[in-house]
């Protein structure tokens, strides 16, 4: 098996070169020898090349159905559509970890290439940090979760011979969905992207170069990682919504939490880093937050990959758990020791003069994000500890998470509106009055308006939390509108520009801030979508052909069964005609499938999307007499705004990553 050997060889060679990169860079920095440093840099490129060769050979074998490879046998089959074959590379542990390594090495190579002239003081320490991480993952790839292992049969004489099964066991049906094809790589880019800011942070700590320089360097890297992590989390939600068939997109599942936790600390870092850049403050916070974000990313991978959250026993069976444990403990101890030893160098250049200042706002923001992250982490790992201590798994369920996350989330939302309007150092009463009058009025007016309209628009009266949420959303939107409007008016006055042009140039001139406002707008839209969950309606209908049942304002009439049979699966579809006030609106066709290769059932939901609500139907099964379909129908208000908000958030992040216009650089005329 030529390709398997090439892949295996490349993995071993990559491990050797990653060690070489670490040693050459460290000794180069110590001896101040350019040749060694260059060898270190080139070794990083070599590692990237080798891992690329390895992943390419696994991919090629996946696409050409080489079922002699155990991994391919377990995660693919001949009848699987091409897109899913491509995605099955990351559908199991071995492939996922290889993808992890690949993304890590790609990031390292790009970081080295782009920073080699700019930061040759930090780079010789940053390279070993990235490459030690690579060594750890390459160790797993080579010795614990090798994706190139082959089947062997034993002949009658007792000799081992290669053995090729006829067909694979197929891809888990739940993973046969477009969101699942792109979700893992996007999420991984998010997780692993934090390795670059982490490496530069460690380099800054080691070399004691703790001013604004490293912070400025890692800004785009952090934004990129953060954006991909956000997109990955949302795609995961989208997948859960469309594939799991319980009507929601977020269940505080440990795997979901694992990706949310580093995103929360990463968000805190992105904000608090601005204070270091502008005022030389919160330095200890920043190094701690980025180390924490990286460690939590690794912990996230560990939680999802070791199986520890489902049970401590599966952790014991897993062949990566112990290695992850050792790596995590070493990283935590190393980071803590390094930060403690550098505390004198991390002294703040300023102090917080007033609680009504932007610095103080950022500090509260950090605290809230950190508390939320730690609470979610606590809830996620609690079952592990309860099982270790009492021998019984005590699961922390949704009410706990909602109890913590709703108030903190709303406080953060409130700060989203307040923070940008506060000035650095202090804000006087007249400034406060000037800036907050309009948004506060908007927020207060939104309350009764929402209460009055909610019955008609969402089919129910809001409780206190949804009401507060909507009022805060209105407040934040008003602050954002006010910022854009006042900025554009000022530009019109100063530069004699037309309003739309002034808006555009305003954003272009200070794309970081205004891009940030667009991200905030996306967050508000997501909050609106989440608020809609409080108004979800659920109906179970058992109907035969021609019969109908009522879901909210809609009538659903069953129009018969259809069946489907091909090489991949057998399926039964039911057709439902959705009418409102005797007008036919949609034809929804949920399906039940049975996948042949994996011998697993799956359910395909049908959704009619509207901006005010989704109509979501699941074909739950057939009744005991075998003549009627059991249908679970949901009205999910405002769900669309979660996805729209996600897109707005990503657009905002892209705007804030645009290269800044230098003074004098031409604007749009």
């Amino acid at each position, binding site marked *: 098996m*030529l390709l398997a*050997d*090439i892949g295996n*060889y490349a993995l071993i*060679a990559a491990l050797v*070169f990653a060690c*070489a990169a670490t040693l050459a860079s460290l000794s*180069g920095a110590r001896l*101040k*020898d*350019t*040749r060694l*440093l*260059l*060898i270190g840099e*080139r*070794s990083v*490129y*070599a590692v990237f*090349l*080798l891992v690329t060769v390895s992943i390419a050979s696994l991919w090629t074998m996946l696409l050409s159905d080489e079922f002699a490879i155990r991994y391919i046998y377990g995660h693919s089959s001949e009848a699987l559509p091409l897109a899913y074959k491509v995605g099955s590379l990351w559908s199991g542990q071995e492939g996922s970890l290889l993808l992890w390594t690949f993304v890590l090495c790609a990031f390292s190579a790009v970081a080295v290439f782009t920073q080699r*002239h*700019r*930061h*040759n*003081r*930090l780079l010789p320490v940053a390279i070993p940090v990235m490459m030690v991480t690579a060594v750890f993952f390459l160790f797993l790839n080579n010795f614990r979760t090798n994706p190139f292992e082959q089947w062997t049969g034993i002949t009658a004489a007792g000799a081992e011979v290669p053995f090729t099964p006829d067909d694979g066991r197929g891809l888990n049906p739940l993973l046969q969905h477009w969101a699942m094809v792109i979700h893992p790589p996007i999420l991984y880019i998010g997780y692993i992207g934090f390795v670059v800011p982490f490496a530069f942070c460690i380099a800054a700590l080691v070399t004691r*170069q703790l*001013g*604004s*320089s490293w912070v*400025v360097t890692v800004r785009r890297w952090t934004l990129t990682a953060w954006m991909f992590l956000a997109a990955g989390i949302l795609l995961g939600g989208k997948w859960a919504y469309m594939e799991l068939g319980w009507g929601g997109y977020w269940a505080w599942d440990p795997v979901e939490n694992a990706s949310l936790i580093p995103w929360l600390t990463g968000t805190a870092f992105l904000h608090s880093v601005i204070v270091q*850049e*502008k005022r030389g403050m919160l330095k200890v916070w920043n190094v701690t937050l980025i180390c924490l974000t990286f460690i939590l990313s690794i912990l996230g991978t560990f939680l999802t990959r070791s199986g520890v959250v489902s049970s401590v026993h599966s952790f014991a069976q897993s062949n990566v758990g112990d290695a992850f444990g050792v790596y995590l403990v070493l990283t935590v101890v190393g980071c803590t020791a390094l930060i403690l030893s550098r505390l004198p160098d991390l002294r703040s250049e300023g102090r917080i003069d007033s609680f009504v200042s932007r610095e103080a706002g950022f500090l509260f923001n950090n605290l809230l994000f950190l508390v939320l992250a730690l609470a979610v982490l606590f809830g996620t790992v609690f079952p592990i500890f309860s099982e270790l201590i009492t021998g019984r798994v005590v699961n922390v369920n949704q009410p706990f998470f909602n109890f913590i996350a709703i108030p903190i989330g709303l406080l953060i939302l409130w700060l989203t509106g307040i923070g940008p*309007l506060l*000035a*650095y*150092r*202090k*804000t*006087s009463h*007249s*400034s406060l009055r*000037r*800036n907050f009058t309009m948004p506060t009025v908007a927020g207060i007016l939104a309350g009764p308006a929402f209460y009055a309209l909610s019955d008609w628009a969402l089919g129910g009266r809001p409780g206190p939390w949804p009401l507060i949420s909507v009022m805060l959303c209105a407040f934040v939107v008003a602050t954002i509108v006010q910022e854009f409007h*006042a*900025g554009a*008016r*000022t530009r019109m*006055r*100063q530069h004699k520009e037309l309003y739309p042009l002034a808006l555009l140039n305003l954003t272009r001139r*200070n794309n970081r*801030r205004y891009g940030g406002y667009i991200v905030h707008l996306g967050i508000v839209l997501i909050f609106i979508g989440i608020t809609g969950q409080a108004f979800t309606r659920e109906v179970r209908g058992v109907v035969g052909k021609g019969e109908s049942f009522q879901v909210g304002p809609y009538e659903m009439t069953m129009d018969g069964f259809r069946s489907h049979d091909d090489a991949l699966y057998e399926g039964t579809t039911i057709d439902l005609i959705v009418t409102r006030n005797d007008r036919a609106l949609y034809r929804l066709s949920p399906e039940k499938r049975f996948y042949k290769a994996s011998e697993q059932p799956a359910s395909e939901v049908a959704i009619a999307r509207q901006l005010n609500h989704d109509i979501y139907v699941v074909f739950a099964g057939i009744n005991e007499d075998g003549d009627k379909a059991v249908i679970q129908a949901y009205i999910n208000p405002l769900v669309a705004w979660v996805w729209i908000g996600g897109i707005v958030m990503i657009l905002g992040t892209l705007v804030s990553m645009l290269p800044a216009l230098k*003074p004098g650089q031409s604007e749009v005329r």
Partner: protein
Amino acid sequence: MNVLLLLMSVVLIAFVVWPAFKRGPQQWQFSEEDTPLGRLATRREVLVGNLTDLDFEFAMGKVAEEDYMSLRNSLKQQTLRIMEQMEVLQGGKVKASEASKATPKAAGSPAPAADFCPACGQATPGNARFCPGCGGALVLEESR
């Protein structure tokens, strides 16, 4: 196949160890941004950015006048300190052109004081009419 893998290894090793045989200076030179002067320059850029932002926020009506004056003053002082340190490191004066580039003029009323002598680049106190360095007249710019 073994030949192929061997060849690949040789090429990669050659690529990686090539710099060991390079001639020329082998002592490590810091890139400009990683020198003390470079770091001060970065800091100065940030401070100048803060000044520009503050001016714009004041023009937007976001910052009250009393806040604006005190904030601007403290930013100006910080910029000056950084520039003095840069001067010491460079062993000479920062060029006048750089100095005037460094601190943007305050926006809106009240009329701001000149920050630097346009002739020699010397920092000047708030309401001086003549430069303490070269004696040249300091012209106050009309505010917009």
